[in-house]
């Protein structure tokens, strides 16, 4: 397939001990080749049996959630034909069962999809974390492990910043800047494979008649194919499509959010706006756009100078205490 867009910029000689702190706040994606080559998981990457032994030696039996998809899905974690349901089953499983299903699938053609995504390393394999993750400094970070066979996850965003490290198998990342959402033909918000809306375009066989603007998204895309030991920084809110390309793939990622703990989920605001703003007459929506621009999106630097500091209320600087009051007021208003 012709590649559109461009390769993600690669950084040389990043220090794994400091990479998260140094990446924090950057606006553009970066690839770090060989960043995690020294991890025990990565050293065993070519030997599936050794990987399995290593994982199970650290597994304490915690239950895990896994996705299982039929062979005809060809690894696509997606919807059924009319987008009324997901095309995979979510099962309660164990890591040893997930690994044995992956092993069995490797002997099948076409193979079913087995995908254990976003499992908190602290809960599932706590003893593995020290040697197989990056130092997170004082960032509020969560470290996750993703294990599966071939899979493709359509473009979606995460609220958090992300450094994802390929430990086994090859993975292709295709990233789109946040402003490409209209060109990605996003699906529903309330029924999603893993929490965020995804692009309904099949990236391996895009139907440009149905999704003509997807060509514009591709033109703006940045991509990279990662080998074991390589890592990629995906900035918060960048759309990313992830293809796991091997029979056995492991990824460990670090998610963090460098915002005060008292700030809630921005997605809640969108949901609230869909309920309470979208249905207004256009002239009223336009007025609200002015208010949002003024107070939230693009506040003028001197916008509050005319209000004495002690009287600014919710307009002023927020801290944990001030946010508490407003959260209760909002909660009570929502309960109607």
């Amino acid at each position, binding site marked *: 397939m012709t590649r559109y867009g461009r390769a993600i910029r690669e950084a040389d000689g990043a220090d794994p001990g400091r990479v998260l702190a140094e990446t924090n706040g950057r606006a553009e994606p970066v690839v770090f080749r060989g960043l995690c080559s020294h991890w025990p998981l990565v050293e065993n990457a070519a030997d599936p049996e050794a990987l399995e032994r290593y994982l199970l030696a650290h597994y304490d039996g*915690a*239950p*895990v*959630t896994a996705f299982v998809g039929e062979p005809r899905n060809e690894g696509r974690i997606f919807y059924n034909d009319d987008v009324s349901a997901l095309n995979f089953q*979510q099962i*309660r499983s164990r890591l040893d069962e997930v690994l044995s299903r992956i092993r069995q699938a490797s002997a099948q053609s076409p193979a079913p999809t087995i995908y*254990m*995504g*976003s*499992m*908190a390393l602290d*809960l*599932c394999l706590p003893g593995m974390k020290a040697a197989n993750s990056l130092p997170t400094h004082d960032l509020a970070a*969560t470290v*996750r492990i993703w294990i599966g066979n071939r899979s493709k996850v359509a473009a979606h965003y995460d609220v958090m910043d992300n450094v994802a490290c390929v430990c086994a198998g090859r993975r292709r990342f295709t990233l789109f800047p946040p402003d490409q959402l209209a060109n990605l033909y996003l699906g529903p918000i309330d029924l999603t494979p893993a929490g965020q809306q995804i692009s309904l375009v099949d990236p391996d066989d895009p139907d440009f008649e149905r999704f003509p603007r997807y060509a514009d998204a591709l033109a703006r895309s940045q991509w990279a194919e990662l080998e074991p030991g390589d890592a990629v920084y995906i900035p918060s809110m960048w759309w990313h499509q992830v293809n796991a390309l091997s029979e056995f793939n492991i990824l460990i990622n670090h998610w963090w959010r460098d915002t005060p703990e008292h700030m809630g989920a921005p997605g809640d605001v969108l949901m609230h706006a869909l309920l309470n703003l979208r249905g207004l007459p256009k002239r009223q929506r336009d007025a609200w756009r002015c208010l949002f621009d003024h107070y939230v999106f693009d506040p003028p630097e001197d916008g509050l100078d005319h209000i004495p500091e002690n009287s600014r209320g919710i307009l002023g600087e927020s801290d944990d205490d001030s946010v508490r009051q407003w959260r209760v007021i909002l909660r009570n208003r*929502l*309960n*109607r």
Partner: protein
Amino acid sequence: MTNHVLLNNVSHKNLRVNPTYRPGHGFDTNLARVFPHELLVLQNEYPLFFIKNRETGHFEPTALLGFSEHENLYLQDGRWDARYMPHSVERQPLLIGFQEQSLDGMPTQVPVVHIDLDHPSVSESEGMPLFLPHGGESEWLERMTPVLKAIHDGHEAIAPLSQTLVGMELIESVSLDLEFRDGSSQVLKGLYTVNESRLAALPAPALETLHRKGYLHHIYMLLASQPNLETLVERKNRALMAAAS
């Protein structure tokens, strides 16, 4: 009959709850399950015992409400005749169910609110609404949230309490020989309580263990509730006299 379903503010938007404390309205039981955290307020109102759960083998604290299977002597002219109602009664027709959700990749049993649609207190016409006009939680439903939470937490407290008391051989079965004013008598079996002389003989370290876990307090609440048995017999006698007159 019961019909337990997950409560939701669309299918159940018009439901109301109107508990009627009369025989035949869903409260006809002589035993109410109670939980360690509420023994303090219950000990002044109900005779408290343990009953043995045949499935788990644990001894569960219970309030005695009557002397035969469906006799509830606290049902009094349509109201519940006590200052404090056990949470397991108050929560009706709601109950806790569980839903499996994936949290951080781990399948987790999350408690959710269920409702028994066949409970006589449930209708679309009478009583307190469950939901506000646009689907918010009514004051009654909001009041039930901490009750259900307390029951959920209380459930988890029962096994360790039972295991500790059994381990110290403090639990003994009691057989109640009851005589009523109309000359009838009854022997009530299947109840358990704490053996006071074995409690008194416990060595200091065992007592300290009970005290630190809060179990000594629970034990004394149970023992202090025993005079309520007399009061319950009185209730029965009053009911018998009323029926006879």
